[in-house]
């Protein structure tokens, strides 16, 4: 019976609001925009941190990625003449990092070279990655078949390679290919394993690529050396790079940033030019959080102001409505309605009003993130708790701003109210 009373009250509230459709709609706009901003704010924030978390997942939150970077001045002076540019990370860098920094658990040196891989009729341009067994500990991808590189492969300078799933597919290989030889450039390697490939999507640059083939670092050093030749439109260019990448894994995420700073100052000391880049996945999260915070401040203020103005608007209209319906209040009181029943009636009306505003706001609020994604390319996610929160906010606005008019209605002297014209 109580539920049917509540439904009757709500129906009566809707009926009264429908008597003034335009007025009710205009009244509710503030709440609509307020709730819309809340939803948009949460969606953008959630999207940003979800993306950052995704990046972290792919790059590893405890990792620091150092990569070789060709300095800008070298790029310019290379011109048409043959020129040898020397840059990048050094074998010594890797040793220094491993030996002098206690927080570093692993440092994985990588030397890569682009070579064509050939298996029977099929060919694929591979990024041949000379590295150590630790690579697979830092870039942890599932092994689909066979095995990873091991220390004994390095010790024995074994001519073995691990392919990615993508490479395997492109070369029309299967797990039966394991044990067979793959020709890379002019050399032969025994395929020992297949790992899952991680395709880098959007702005996320993972250390591994789909076209990787992993071989022991010392084999790469012995077969390809440190000097590579690049031929491009009319010019011939020699490059000398010892290491293209060093992956550093740190004990805990607290130590990531101090370690990155330490590496930075160490590299600065030993490198004349800025021929390296340090990227810290954890910093991406910080950046995402900063973005989120900025968005939250801007949209939060909009939301707050809209809700305040919307609430005041609702209060204003309800006060007018109470005055208009003074006589109705008098009649209800004369018949025997208690003060709290009058409060309930008007409060339900404001709550219905603000909740309808909230629902419209949620609908609009879900379109804004969609537009942001569409136009600005920012990822957005409307979180379920955001919808619940918005509904609570709208009901709250209804209660807070409806209470005063409702109490005022209830406190009227029934005799005076009955005489009201």
């Amino acid at each position: 019976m109580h539920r049917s009373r509540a439904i009757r009250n709500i129906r009566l509230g809707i009926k009264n609001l429908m008597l003034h459709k335009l007025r009710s709609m205009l009244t509710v706009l503030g709440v609509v925009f307020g709730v819309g901003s809340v939803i948009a704010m949460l969606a953008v924030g959630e999207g940003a941190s979800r993306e950052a978390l995704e990046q972290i997942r792919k790059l590893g939150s405890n990792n620091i990625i150092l990569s070789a970077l060709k300095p800008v001045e070298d790029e310019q002076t290379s011109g048409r003449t043959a020129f040898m540019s020397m840059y990048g990370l050094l074998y010594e860098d890797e040793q220094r990092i491993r030996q002098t920094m206690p927080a570093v658990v692993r440092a994985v040196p990588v030397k890569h070279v682009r070579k064509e891989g050939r298996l029977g009729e099929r060919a694929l341009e591979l990024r041949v990655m000379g590295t150590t067994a630790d690579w697979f500990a830092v870039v942890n991808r599932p092994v689909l078949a066979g095995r990873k590189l091991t220390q004994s492969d390095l010790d024995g300078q074994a001519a073995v390679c691990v392919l990615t799933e993508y490479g395997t597919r492109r070369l029309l290989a299967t797990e039966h290919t394991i044990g067979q030889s793959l020709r890379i450039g002019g050399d032969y390697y025994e395929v020992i394993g297949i790992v899952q490939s991680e395709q880098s999507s959007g702005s996320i640059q993972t250390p591994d690529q789909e076209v990787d083939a992993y071989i022991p670092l010392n084999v790469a050093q012995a077969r390809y050396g440190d000097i590579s030749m690049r031929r491009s439109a009319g010019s011939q260019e020699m490059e000398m790079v010892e290491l293209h990448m060093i992956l550093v894994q740190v004990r805990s995420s607290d130590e990531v940033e101090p370690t990155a700073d330490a590496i930075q100052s160490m590299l600065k000391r030993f490198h004349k030019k800025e021929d390296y880049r340090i990227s810290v996945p954890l910093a991406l999260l910080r950046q995402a959080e900063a973005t989120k915070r900025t968005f939250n401040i801007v949209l939060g203020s909009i939301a707050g102001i809209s809700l305040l103005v919307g609430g005041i608007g609702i209060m204003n209209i309800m006060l007018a409505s109470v005055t208009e319906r003074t006589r109705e209040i008098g009649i209800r009181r004369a018949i025997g309605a208690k003060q709290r029943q009058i409060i309930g009636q008007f409060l339900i009306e404001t709550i219905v009003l603000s909740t309808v505003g909230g629902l419209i706001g949620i609908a609009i609020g879900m379109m804004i993130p969609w537009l942001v994604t569409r136009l600005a390319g920012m990822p957005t996610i409307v979180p379920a708790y955001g919808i619940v929160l918005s509904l609570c906010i709208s009901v709250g606005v209804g209660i807070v701003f409806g209470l005063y008019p409702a109490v005022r209605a209830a406190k009227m002297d029934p005799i005076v109210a009955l005489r009201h014209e």
Partner: protein
Amino acid sequence: MAAPAADASRPAAQEELIVLQDVHKIYQMGTAQVKALAGVSLSVRRGGFWAIMGPSGSGKSTMLNLLGCLDRPTRGRYVLNRHDVSTLSDDGLSEIRLREIGFVFQSFNLIPQLTVQENIELPLYYQGWAAARSAERAEELAAMVGLGDRSGHRPTELSGGEQQRVAVARSLANDPSVLLADEPTGNLDSATGQQIMELFAELNRRGKTIVLVTHEPHIAGYAGHRLHMRDGRVDRIEAEA
């Protein structure tokens, strides 16, 4: 005052429904005090039909507000159907109005956005009746006042007489111990007014206690007792034999 004596001739078996003892009502108007009622005593038995008459300012509206539990006496005692209502809280007065009193006003006072049926149901709604049962009772009452076919209409779609019938039906919904009417025919033409008065007379014949305020002698003529007020006091009481 002389009031209790006036009823002494009535059969003693009839119980006293309304008892006023030396009731005063004083309003504070700025610094001045206005004595709206200056010591009224009155006793109305169950089944009585009373008309309160008097010039404007004589205190008859104040009387009706007090009898209707819309207001409390400044001094004195008011007992309605064995409830002492002189000192009740606002909620207590609401409860008494809800259970014991039915109001009929001069200007009908129906709620315009509700249908006839919903208006009649209003007291039942506040009493917490289930929707189906209260709809059934509203239907019966509408039929009783001759508006069985108008349940779904809005008050504005009805004539004045019809609206007043709806108001009477509403005032009966809670089966009140007393029906209070404030100039119920004041907004109606004389023929329609007469029909409403016939309705009251019929209700009284069926045992309903009625108190109405009027300044028209021919309306007061329907009542068994006519109470004349002057300057906040009972001037005299005429009773039919």
